């Protein structure tokens, strides 16, 4: 077997082992390379930062366990920012029912850190299927979509919800999402009711939403673990995302290396065949 054939036929299990190592080793021996903050992350941070204590933010944690690795650090960072500034938060989770568990985990973690009380400082409304319908219904009145909160308390009995009727009473809505639900938020909540919308998405989806940044339909955008790490830097509370960035670096370099090896093999092979052909 010639060298280029070998280069083109590395067993995928070998690649798998290398990828695993590229993530595990940096976690054990972190380099902690600095993180640079991008403008779309900064815009969202600044928007929330300018809010006053007592203002209300609608945070929709529209992801589920499958995208939790990227989305959970964003959710926790934004909750930390709000709680530390005395901003009140209404939390929903509209993408998939499985998202309820992860949303509750993030919410209770941040609430405990800042000693925030359910019903006074935050409300967890929970999940309802048919996100578009729910988003529109909340534009009319939160009570329409959610007569009760996730824990079964009637909205009327929740002190924080007094005087809060619909999107007019919130300053910004931030959706952290692992699915295409942002379009629905932008089209219905932003489009129909004119609420400023900010978003955090998995890296894969981020490119899809630059169009909304450019057209002003999104205030800001966090993309993937890097976006989360940037936000952690802005709120000066480095955590899981920041730690994961080293593994991210290594794995990216390794994948680029794979592409290069594969292509060198491909071109050498093509040339060799070409010569034989003549």
């Amino acid at each position, binding site marked *: 077997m010639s060298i280029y054939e070998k280069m083109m036929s590395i067993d995928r299990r070998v690649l798998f082992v290398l990828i695993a190592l590229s993530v595990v080793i940096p976690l054990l021996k972190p380099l902690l390379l600095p993180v640079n903050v991008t403008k779309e992350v900064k815009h969202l941070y600044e928007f929330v930062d300018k809010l006053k204590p007592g203002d209300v933010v609608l945070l929709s944690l529209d992801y589920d366990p499958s995208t939790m690795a990227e989305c959970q650090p964003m959710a926790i960072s934004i909750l930390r920012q709000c709680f530390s500034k005395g901003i009140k938060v209404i939390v929903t989770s509209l993408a998939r029912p499985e998202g309820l568990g992860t949303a509750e985990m993030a919410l209770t973690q941040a609430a405990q850190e800042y000693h925030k009380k359910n019903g006074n400082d935050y409300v967890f409304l929970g999940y309802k299927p048919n996100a578009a319908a729910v988003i529109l219904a909340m534009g009319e009145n939160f009570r329409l979509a959610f007569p009760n909160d996730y824990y079964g308390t009637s909205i009327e009995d929740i002190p924080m919800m007094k005087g809060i009727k619909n999107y007019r009473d919130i300053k910004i809505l931030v959706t952290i999402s692992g699915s295409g639900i942002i379009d629905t938020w932008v089209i219905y909540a932003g489009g129909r009711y004119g609420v400023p919308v900010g978003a955090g998405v998995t890296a*894969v989806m981020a490119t899809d939403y630059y169009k909304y940044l450019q057209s002003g339909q999104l205030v800001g955008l966090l993309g993937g673990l890097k976006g989360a790490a940037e936000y952690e830097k802005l709120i000066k509370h480095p955590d899981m995302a920041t730690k994961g960035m080293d593994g991210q670096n290594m794995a990216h370099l390794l994948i680029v290396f794979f592409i290069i090896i594969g292509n060198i093999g491909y071109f050498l092979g093509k040339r060799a065949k070409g010569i034989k052909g003549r």
Partner: protein
Amino acid sequence: MRTKIAERRVEGVNRGIIPLVAFLFLLAIGGRAGAQSSTDTLPPSPPSEVTAFDTHNDAGKNITINWKLSADDGTGRNTVKGYDILRSESRSGEFEMVGSVVAGISTFQDDKVENHRNYFYKVRAKDHRFSESGIVGPVQASGQWYNTNRTVVLIFVVIFTALVIYFVSSAKKGKKLYIRPIPGMDAVDEAVGRATEMGRPILYILGLSTISDVATLASLTILGRVAKKVAEFQSKLLVPCYDPIVMTVAQEVVKNAYLDAGRPDSYDESNIWFLSQSQFAYAAGVNGIMLRERTATNFYLGMFYAESLILAETGNIAGSIQIAGTDAVVQLPFFITSCDYTLIGEEFYAASAYLSREPKLLGSIKAQDWGKMGLIALIVLGGFFASIHHLSGFVNLFTVGH
């Protein structure tokens, strides 16, 4: 519009709070502060030019009040902290406060009113004193029957509807409509044939969306074609489903295809079943099917999310021929790298027309092409006007309000 108000509110805070902080600071340093504040015995000048009117384009029960800022808000002595809005049901009656805003804001919406009843309003500026504007009214709230802010949407919808109806009906009348060849669609027969030769089943994935998704509908149309070929070749078609309604419709589509092919008894309903409504449980399930059934050809047509690569890469490793098509832009790169043919966005919709040659589909592709031409013309025109300074208002014609 909303962001503008928000910004102004923020500015308002600064305007309101900085003088206040300065004032408190002066108070704190004693005598001199007392002297300072004693010169400020005058109330702020009142807001002027107050207007109240029924809020436009709303459901009713809402009145908008606008005013001109007090001369001491942001300018003058700059002492105003905010404004209170007061309402009464008669000019001489008692006024009650219905809301307040911070300094720098000159508009308020009162949404606690009844329709078709007279109301009077006044606005007062406040620092530690008040100064009231004159009374305005009577004004009534009512709901409107047409939202003038949305006229541009109406125009677009009407024009496009006319295009669709025109082209679909002319296609039905038998007018020949050309559609350019779509890569991959000519390979469908070959792919089905190959599976038959190998004696392995064909896997058809309708995507992970509901019946109301265009991608799902386009996929169902293509499924009909594929199922007919499968019936003719007497091979096996597996359709694991994500959505229960899509599943039931798919069952009917395939059944009808077998009927058309003249082999209704070969149809086996248990090959079109509900797998899971959980994305990764679904992906795991399909992976299992690909590896265990050793499918020869995999179709991924419809709406996809992150599972796209898991599916396409597993199929690739298994050595199946793969044809993909989706309007999920994010997933397209993965299909492009790991499938033999990939239909991009609208190309996928067009593929269902290309394969089926149904006039209703051909007609709407034609209408969409005309729609695109219209959009291109508008973009060129818009870019041209936007580049010429005093004509840039053209762009604002396309602003849709709430």
